[in-house]
């Protein structure tokens, strides 16, 4: 693995420094390794994201206009330590409290909770909404054991837009909770990423196998299946999402007429060409089922280095979520104009 880096042990620090340069004045470096917007208005309910580095452009690439106010950045694949969470919390807080919105991983929960304790010592109110969109990581009755994967992109987009006008932390928390509840993802992987500091692959998989339901670090899901065509696999992935909406007693099944966002994500090395080929089939399946695809996101946004694989995420929209989706937004990796992408 020839990587374009300097010191393998400094990649997380250097990439965040680079990210600040990419933001070119919109954001600044705070504390040990956080990135925070410069123009957070007084009295705004703040939105903080974060997690391990190495999954770029998330999580820290989702800071921006009508997006997150800041991100607490961990080292490669490691949750940010509590002090980093606290430094970011302090920097984004404008007196109305801070919503933590991040993927449900043991390390993140432990460290963000410790960070929140430090913040509460300084009288900063913090709430936490965990993202657990990966349907292959636990059954619907055990959502607290589910991982957060690519579904965080539409969720953060919507919460970021809502945070611009949220009257209170309660209001933003409720909205984020709703977006999480309506978002489900399935990922698959064909080959591993590597750990920059060691060059080692993050997992092993046979040449003729695909990990169905795999997490973004290579955590197992449904199991290994024989290598399949893009069409076959797209159908299988959507079936898992449909089945989950169906089984989950907290939400209605996906039904004809429902409006959704569809997000087709690359885990790294999988090309846009492949994403588009998978998207072609996914769209056909959704149309056939009478689901209305309100808008589409496609690209390598939630990655694990040069891991090959894709994920589908579906967020069911109501009028409120749609309103926030349609607001424009801008960050180094994810921007849109007012309205839908599609005409």
């Amino acid at each position, binding site marked *: 693995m020839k990587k374009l880096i300097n010191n393998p042990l400094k990649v997380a620090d250097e990439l965040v420094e680079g990210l600040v340069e990419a933001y070119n004045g919109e954001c600044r470096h705070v504390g040990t390794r956080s990135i925070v917007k410069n123009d957070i208005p007084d009295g705004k309910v703040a939105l903080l994201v974060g997690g391990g580095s190495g999954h770029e452009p998330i999580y820290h690439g989702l800071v921006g206009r009508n997006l997150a106010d800041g991100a607490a950045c961990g*080292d490669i694949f490691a949750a940010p330590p509590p002090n980093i969470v606290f430094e970011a919390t302090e920097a984004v807080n404008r007196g109305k409290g801070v919503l933590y919105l991040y993927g449900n991983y043991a390390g993140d929960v432990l460290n963000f909770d410790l960070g929140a304790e430090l913040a509460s010592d300084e009288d900063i109110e913090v709430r936490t909404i965990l993202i657990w969109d990966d349907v292959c990581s636990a059954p619907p009755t055990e959502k607290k054991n589910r991982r957060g994967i690519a579904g965080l992109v539409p969720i953060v987009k919507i919460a970021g837009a809502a945070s611009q006008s949220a009257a209170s932390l309660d209001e933003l928390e409720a909205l984020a909770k709703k977006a999480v509840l309506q978002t489900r993802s399935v990922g698959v992987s064909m080959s591993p990423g590597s750990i920059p500091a060691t060059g080692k692959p993050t997992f092993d998989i046979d040449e003729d196998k695909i990990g169905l339901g795999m997490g973004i670090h290579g955590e197992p899901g449904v199991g290994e299946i024989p290598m399949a065509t893009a069409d076959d696999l797209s159908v299988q992935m959507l079936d898992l999402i449909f089945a989950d909406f169906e089984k989950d007693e907290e939400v209605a099944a996906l039904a004809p007429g429902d409006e959704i966002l569809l997000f087709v994500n690359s885990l790294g090395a999988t090309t846009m060409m492949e994403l588009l080929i998978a998207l072609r089939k996914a769209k056909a399946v959704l149309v056939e089922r009478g689901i209305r695809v309100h808008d589409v996101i496609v690209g390598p946004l939630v990655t694990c280095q040069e891991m090959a694989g894709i994920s589908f995420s579906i967020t069911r929209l109501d009028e409120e979520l749609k309103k926030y989706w349609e607001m424009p937004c801008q960050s180094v990796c994810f921007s849109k104009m007012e309205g839908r992408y599609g005409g």
Partner: protein
Amino acid sequence: MGKASLTISEVRDMMLAAADKIIESEPILTDADRALGDGDHGVGMERGMTAVKEALAGKDFPSAGKVFVAVGTAMMSSMGGASGAIFGTLFRSGGKAVGEGDAFTAKELAALLREGTDQVMARGGAKPGDKTMVDALVPAADKAAEVATLPLDEALAAVAEAAAAGRDASEGMIATMGRAKTLGENSLGKPDAGAVSVSIIVAAMRDYAAA
């Protein structure tokens, strides 16, 4: 020639030796976490122990307990990940329980491990049998309580053996916490990475006290 008790600066040197041992063991820890987790445990521990060395080397501490608190703070604030928070909690809570004395004996060792382990379990929610470092910590803490009146070198020998046995026992467990939990039965047959780290640290403490 073993040590029945350690001075504050010996405690510091013992933890520096443990830090070196972990740094040296990075590939072992990486492989353990690659098998069951996301493969970053080795690098994370190396980062944590590098911070520990910076925090301890050439420094004087007012008490043995404060050495452990400094170890925990360095790990917690440099590592991140599950193990940063867990090891941070272990040494910070455990260090506070060691108290402000200037001798570190088997009694202080027992306090360190008992309180540290309890707080780790409270913080992380893992119980024995969940295939986490708790499976090395609980037997180590139990054994330390049993041998709390022995000379430190002898006590550490027994505790290191218990930690190693706990690590070995973790091979036969099915992961239910952390990133390995979705492996289910596939997690059988391999030790938990955090338990490996615990056994390496305790073994290094034993070796220091034995010398």
